[in-house]
């Protein structure tokens, strides 16, 4: 009996360990399989054509710049909308709202995080795009701007949730100190609480933007998908990296240059998201270390 239990314990602990290690394996597998299918693209297309200004696979033109530009424009647009909105919402929930309201507002904002991106894309396509076309008097409503607005809505809950946690973690003594010196509530928030939580708030912003770069379906449905670089690109159709993969992978022959090229785009996305997340989490880690130092 005792022997069997011991055997069972050994087996279960082995399983626990294996599952813990498996996450590293998954990341490695993802990277390896992307590399294996994407690296051949580097030999099939010359570096000059990869840096070209046209993405036109039918004529074997694989310029990545228009796609990078599309992702960049849409993401910057989303950041411009979602950062002030998100940080302000987090400030309201953490600092202004009474406790009971906080318990309601936080899950409510998180509903937005759960909305499938196709649902937002569908509404964007049917409602927002026509609205943008008529109000801004554009030839089409399927623009980078339309995508930016949807992405802002998707990045918002991440920013609010992480930033609110950071604000909430600022020790109460900081606020008490500022108030005791005669600062108003707002001065305390603006000059003490927000600066004290800044690395957490920055992390929130990074994670929100990371989510925006990787979004696919909503962006594909509302940005018009024309790969082009122009200075007023925000008001014209754009083609992001994610939308390119989603739109073209279905029609591509396995093993063709185009197929490899789409995997190359995926490698780029993987590296960008890796970078963004590492920076975001190391900022949070440093902030934690600093807080520990200050408290001890």
């Amino acid at each position, binding site marked *: 009996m005792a022997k069997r239990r011991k055997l069972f314990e050994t087996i279960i602990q082995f399983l626990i360990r294996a*599952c813990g290690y498996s996450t590293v394996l998954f990341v490695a597998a*993802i990277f390896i399989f992307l590399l294996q299918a994407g690296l051949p693209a580097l030999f099939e297309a010359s570096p000059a054509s990869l840096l070209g200004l046209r993405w036109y696979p039918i004529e074997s033109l694989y310029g990545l710049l228009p796609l990078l530009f599309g992702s960049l424009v849409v993401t910057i647009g989303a950041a411009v909308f979602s950062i002030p909105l998100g940080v302000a919402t987090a400030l309201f929930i953490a600092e202004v709202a009474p406790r009971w309201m906080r318990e309601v507002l936080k899950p409510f904002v998180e509903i937005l995080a759960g909305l499938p991106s196709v649902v937002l894309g569908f509404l964007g396509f049917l409602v927002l795009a026509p609205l943008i076309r008529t109000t801004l008097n554009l030839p089409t409503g399927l623009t980078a701007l339309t995508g930016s607005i949807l992405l802002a809505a998707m990045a918002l809950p991440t920013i609010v949730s992480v930033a609110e946690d950071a604000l909430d973690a600022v020790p109460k003594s900081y606020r008490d100190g500022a108030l005791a010196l005669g600062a108003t509530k707002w001065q305390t928030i603006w000059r003490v609480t927000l600066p004290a939580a800044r690395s957490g708030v920055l992390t929130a912003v990074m994670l929100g933007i990371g989510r925006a770069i990787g979004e696919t379906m909503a962006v594909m449905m509302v940005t018009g998908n024309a790969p082009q670089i122009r200075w007023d690109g925000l008001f014209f159709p754009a083609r992001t990296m994610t939308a390119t993969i989603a739109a073209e992978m279905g029609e591509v022959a396995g093993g063709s240059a185009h197929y490899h090229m789409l995997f190359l785009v995926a490698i780029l996305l993987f590296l960008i998201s890796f970078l963004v997340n590492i920076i975001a989490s190391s900022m949070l880690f440093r902030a934690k270390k600093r807080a520990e130092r200050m408290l001890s």
Partner: protein
Amino acid sequence: MRIPRSVVQKIAFSALTAIMAVTILTILTIITFIFWNGLPAVSSEFLFSMPREGMTAGGIWPAIVGTLYLTLGTAVIAVPIGLLAAIYLSEYAPDSTFTRTIRIAIINLAGIPSVVYGLFGLALFVLFLQLGSSILASCLTLAIMTLPVIISTAEEALRAVPQSFRVVSISMGGTRWQTIQRIVLPQALPGILTGVILGLERAAGETAPILFTGASFFLPQLPQSIFDETMALPYHLFVISTQVPGMPVRIQYGTALVLLVFVLVMNLSATLIRSYFRRKRQW
């Protein structure tokens, strides 16, 4: 002239309140708009019959069933792995470089764009492991995507259980696994459940990962095994709102509504479980 600081405070607080109101109103508008336009389309025929006439008539039953299959399949794969990984991180993992590597891997998994998961699933499960475009390949892809959510919420729930509980159990002669199984897990269950539901909610609503791994444009019958392709609500909504010309708007809104209700119910239950048990908890 300096503006009195009490006025500055008034302006600032009004601005914050206004922005909060905008956020709330946006969310409410999205939800009521879909309910308002979608409800007239929903009937038992719409929910439980097959699509007809090139999907412009009939129901969305196969898409509903498909999404249920995909969500359940994802749960079957992701929950055990995620839970055990969370137990490892909270109860076993030493404070070492390798543990930090695991944490970085989890953070990284959480950040990978969903369409990249789709390509990975295509390369590994569909082509390399020759599972073909199938429910199984889709579930495996969705499961890996869901893992980081489940692991981080479950770990947080496990860590929240006070250390004294473990100490008492071990001092009574319980083994490490007995302590986890009978003391720690039951205490952390509500938190774990919340994380699982939130992870699955994301999986249920995703389109990009199943695009090339198992989602089908249209099927005349329900899938017969896990090696068949399947229709799914998010992909169906994408197809009928962008790919099918002359699609009645009513059916589009109806489909959006069903998908929305699907994820809202999951979201709401996660929130309720969390707040109910937080109130009941005695430590």
